[in-house]
């Protein structure tokens, strides 16, 4: 490492030493000197437009902008001289000339840089004597944002965010000079998974989020430092509430995790708490209907049934990936120490592993990776803020991005697409790892290509979806081989649920205890429990924060199991497809209503604080299982206090002796990891479920903030297949598999591979899991719905 040169300079007479090349504005910060800025944002390239940051630099003939001037040895800077004050006053006067001054009703009022800097540096009154110029006041910019062009000071942070950070190039300045407006490149909607960030970085109240518009004043808000659990990235954020109701969420930069941004799914998922669908008290099935019940009744009934089933060795527990680490730990304690069974599994989706066994990478590793391999993980949909890092690495560092998977995803940056059928990835990776290890030339054009990329790269990060166990271990071998020749790299596994990795780590798997400690007697996996239940071999199931009816790959099996099991208790925040089958439903507290820790996809354990109180009959998952433990006469095993649980968890983890490499969670016997051949006749099509950020049941289905963004369930065909099938865009088709069918509108294009049909995953109105088996595989026949007469005319 070469040492960075340090330079010394004087700012307002104070000496400061900073690395060569530091911007004057940043150097001033080190002295606690604030230089006002509008267009400058530390995460984006300086552009030097707003001119508020002008300072005096000795020897320079004119004032210089502090936001883009770099320090030099011996530089003498004055940030408070009369000349500087005059320039600032001038810029503020100009900005305020036609500004509407709606501060009393503006969302930003109280945290607005225009207000604040005017108070500090601005002129007291305007010298404008004619009427102000007007601009559009309520521009519906897209599903999340309303823009007030009159408040906009044209700093362009928003357009630059969209260009530089999101790499989407949709937000632009239209028109010219003082007629400039913020708009989209084609006049369409500003649709982006990251749009909410623009409302935050907008220094004024021009970009307002529809979710928060006119709802609160900043000084009325309470703040809680929290962590988003909408996906496994675990972005840090702040939850702002007013009188006990959440109003908004706000970034809370952790540069190792989120880089100061959050995605819209994370930002806007909280209003479901205030919807009718929110469960506010326990429900018990009486005469076939779920009816309101007391917590005591729900606990008594569940304890009785679950206890009896456990005594007969016929009970199981599913869940953990949506709980906190403490609660997932409590859940497995409940299964193991109260019910006396190892039948516990957090995996209610296709994912088998939530972590790599070896060579785990950090999110930061993406920043300087020169080769990024995406294996099946669709990062924009499943880990949006991780995807921002990939976008930056590709756009700024010319990192090479390769996507290997069964269809061509929609990515924001250029990538190399390698079509590989579901399942067959494992074979490919195995062959490649083997060839590299032996120093041999692998077979097949793609493998040769990839081998060359790997040879040329010096730092490789693989992003895996944790589904295919053969691919997972081959990937580890691959990295091992690369590390052996002096390269750097590692693996990230995108979790299927927000806290999937936490659940795995604290022992919500049938064969591992907390800290990946191998257990002598493995219990049943989710698939095994569901099969047993469907076959009358399980008497009771307890499910916490999981929705297998919608997400378990073999939906027919899941539904049969939930129907057949004599007793089902579910802990949930809102009514779900799974809870609808339950005998008892517990109203569970949300993330916002409790505190604890969660573990993100890189294994980072992060604390989150409680933001609001839960409704009175709503209990935390820990409270539910500890009440059940007490009712089952094991009150000492469990406590609902997060601190108690956390210290126990830490103690158990420290004592655990994990194997090296880590022992893997038990696989379902049904898993076939190897390749599947497409139907050459194309009488049947292989189903490929496609994740979408805003899809899903539960909270995301009921959140009004997400409703405008909710995708439509779609079946996408390759255009050649569509021709063969006689399907045009938007034609309604029925997909029929051995165990069920769904009816959806078709997309025609080139993202699907020939012989496959892509189906939006996790859509309650058209559940793809009706078409799949337990290892996520399915073949369907395709029947176009008859065209209506008027359509033919």
């Amino acid at each position, binding site marked *: 490492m070469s040492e960075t040169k340090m330079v010394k300079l004087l700012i307002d007479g104070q000496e400061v030493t900073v690395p060569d090349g530091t911007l004057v504005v940043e150097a001033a910060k080190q002295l606690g000197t604030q230089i006002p800025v509008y267009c400058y944002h530390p995460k984006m390239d*300086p*552009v*030097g*437009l*707003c*001119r*508020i940051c*002008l300072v005096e630099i000795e020897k320079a003939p*004119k*004032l210089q902008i502090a936001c*883009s001037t770099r320090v030099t040895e011996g530089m003498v800077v004055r940030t408070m001289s009369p000349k500087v004050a*005059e*320039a600032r*006053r*001038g*810029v503020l*006067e*100009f*900005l305020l*000339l*036609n500004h509407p001054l709606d501060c009393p009703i503006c969302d930003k009022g109280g945290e607005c840089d225009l207000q604040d800097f005017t108070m500090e540096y601005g002129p007291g009154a305007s*010298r*404008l*004597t*004619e009427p102000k*110029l007007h601009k559009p006041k309520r521009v519906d910019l897209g599903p999340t944002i309303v823009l007030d062009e009159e408040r906009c*000071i*044209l700093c*362009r942070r928003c357009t630059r965010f969209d260009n530089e950070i999101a790499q989407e190039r949709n937000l*632009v*300045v239209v*028109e*010219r*000079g*003082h*007629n*400039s407006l913020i708009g989209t490149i084609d006049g369409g909607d500003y649709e982006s998974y990251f749009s909410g960030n623009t409302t935050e970085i907008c220094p004024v109240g021009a970009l307002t989020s529809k979710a928060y518009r006119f709802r609160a004043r900043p000084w009325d808000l309470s703040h809680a430092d929290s962590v988003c659990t909408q996906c496994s990235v675990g972005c840090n954020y702040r939850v702002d509430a007013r009188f006990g109701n959440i109003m908004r969420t706000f970034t809370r930069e952790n540069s190792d995790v989120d880089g100061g941004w959050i995605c819209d799914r994370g930002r806007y998922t909280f209003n479901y708490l205030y919807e009718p669908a929110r469960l506010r008290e326990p429900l018990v099935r009486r005469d076939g209907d779920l009816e309101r019940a007391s917590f005591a009744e729900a606990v008594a009934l569940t304890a009785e049934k679950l206890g009896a089933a456990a005594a007969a060795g016929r009970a199981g527990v599913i869940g953990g990936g949506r709980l906190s680490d403490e609660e997932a730990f409590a859940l497995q304690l409940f299964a193991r120490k109260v019910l006396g069974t190892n039948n516990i599994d957090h995996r209610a989706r296709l994912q088998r592993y939530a972590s790599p066994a070896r060579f785990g990478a950090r999110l930061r590793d993406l920043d300087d990776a020169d080769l990024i391999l995406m294996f099946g993980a669709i990062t924009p949909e499943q880990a949006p803020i991780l995807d921002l890092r990939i976008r930056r690495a590709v756009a700024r560092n010319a990192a090479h991005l390769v996507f290997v998977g069964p269809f061509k995803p929609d990515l924001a940056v250029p990538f190399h697409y390698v079509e590989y059928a579901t399942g067959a990835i494992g074979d490919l990776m195995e062959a490649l790892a083997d060839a590299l290890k032996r120093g041999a030339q692998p077979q097949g054009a793609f493998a040769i290509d990839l081998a060359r990329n790997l040879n040329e790269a010096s730092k490789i990060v693989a992003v895996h979806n944790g589904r295919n166990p053969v691919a997972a271990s081959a990937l580890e071998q691959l990295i091992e081989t690369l590390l052996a020749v002096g390269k750097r790299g590692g693996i990230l596994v995108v979790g299927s649920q927000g806290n999937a990795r936490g659940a795995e780590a604290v022992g919500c798997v049938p064969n591992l205890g907390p800290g990946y400690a191998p257990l002598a007697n493995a219990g049943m996996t989710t698939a095994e429990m569901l099969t047993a239940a469907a076959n009358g071999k399980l008497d009771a199931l307890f499910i916490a924060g999981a929705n297998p009816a919608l997400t378990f790959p073999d939906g027919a099996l899941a539904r049969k199991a939930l129907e057949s099991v004599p007793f089902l208790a579910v802990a949930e925040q809102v009514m779900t497809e799974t809870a609808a089958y339950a005998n008892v439903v517990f109203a569970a507290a949300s993330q916002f209503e409790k505190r604890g820790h969660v573990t993100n996809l890189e294994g980072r354990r992060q604390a989150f604080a409680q933001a609001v109180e839960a409704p009175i009959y709503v209990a935390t998952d820990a409270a539910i299982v500890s009440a059940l433990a007490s009712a089952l006469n094991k009150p000492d095993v469990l406590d609902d206090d997060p601190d108690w649980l956390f210290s126990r968890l830490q103690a158990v983890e420290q004592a655990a002796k994990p194997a090296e490499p880590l022992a893997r969670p038990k696989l379902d016997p049904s898993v076939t990891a190897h390749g599947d051949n497409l139907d050459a006749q194309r009488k049947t099509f292989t189903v490929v479920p496609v994740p979408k950020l805003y899809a899903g049941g539960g909270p995301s289905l009921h959140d009004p903030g997400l409703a405008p963004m909710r995708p439509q369930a779609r079946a996408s065909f390759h255009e050649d297949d569509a021709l063969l099938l006689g399907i045009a865009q938007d034609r309604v088709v029925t997909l029929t598999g051995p165990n069920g069918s769904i009816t959806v509108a078709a997309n025609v294009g080139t993202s699907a591979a020939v012989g496959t049909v892509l189906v939006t995953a996790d859509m309650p109105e058209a559940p793809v899991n009706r078409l799949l088996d337990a290892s996520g595989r399915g073949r369907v026949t395709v029947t176009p719905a008859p065209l209506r007469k008027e359509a033919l005319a």
Partner: protein
Amino acid sequence: MATFEPVIMKGIGESDLADIDVYERGGGFSVLRKVMSDMTPDAVAAVVTESNLRGRGGAGFPTGRKWSFLPKDGRPRYLVCNCDEAEPGTFKDRMLLEKTPLQLIEGLVISAYAMGAKQAYIYIRGEFLEGSRIFRRALAAAQSRNYLGDRILGSDFSLDLVVHRGAGAYICGEETAQLESIEGRRGEPRLKPPFPAVAGLYGMPTVVNNVETLCYVKHIIERGAQWFAKIGPEKSPGPKIMSVSGHVRQPGNYEIPLGIPARELIDEYAGGLLPGRKLKAFQPGGASSAALFEEDLDVGIDFDSLAAKRTMLGSGGFVVMDDTACMVNCARTLTRFFEHESCGQCTPCREGGQWVARMVARLEAGEGSQEDLRVLNVINNTITGTNLCPLGDSIMPFLSSVLKRFPDEFAAHVAHGACPIKDVTAVVA
């Protein structure tokens, strides 16, 4: 009558120099031939440096120095010929484009050779439709005779020239905005540094030169650096085309040796003032330049003499205003121009420019106030010198100079609600 023998305007109006046969018969492309067969790129660049040629596009930067900033690091480099001429009062590049496009091509190829650019662009102002047609025809003819294209005249040097037309924005004449525009983005100046010579078009080392600058290169190579350096003042040498407009008998383009007094340009070249009129003000360097007055008529027309008078030679747009001109009206025209052409990036240029234009328009309409005058007298401090590109610094110079010199005329507009001059003649630049 003026005695200076035109250099780059030679033959214009006498024969059709856009016809390649005519151009060749008059010695056209002989300099390029000589360069290709006898001179190394460095030798060509050395002559240009020695001649002390300063850019004719406005900033007057020494051309040889500019070329020498290109880093020798093996990256591709580009030459961009700036033909976006949109400064009110300047109309020389348009004439060169339409009347002698082959001379421009010859100068451009020689310059590209000197700096080692294999790819060149010419950015032609959108409104120059006829000019771009003429230029394209000339370009095709030059290509057909291998003055451009692969292995020019049998040498190892190849050059491709792309014609890029503007879309009606004055700011695209500013070199970095021009590069943005060529790259397909909104034409807006970039933050400097880095300068184009280091990171220009598509991030590669780039030189932007004016049409007139490139035309002189050809003649400097032909006649030698010393010939050029000896014309006019030492630090500001050579001939230059002045576009003279406004209240003179013979408006038009005149090629002068730099350094001659303004009086001579008006009287000897442009035929003098109209009968019975008195000089009131003149702008020596286009819309961006501060006005000079009767007492300044002996100032030398060259970069440094004009700078000493706190104005500039600019691109050579020389606008004459006599006693029938209303200064408020002239200021209104110009401030309106800059308000309209501001790209809108910088707060002072965008907002200040708009405010100033509104105030001056109100004054002209007789609806102004004392407060407007007070503001206009001090606003210079916050508008000028605070922007990203020189356009923002161009809003105030003319207005400030006439406001200072003719305060009564402005005050009269406020006091009487109308212009004190009878029969105002608008200045047509």
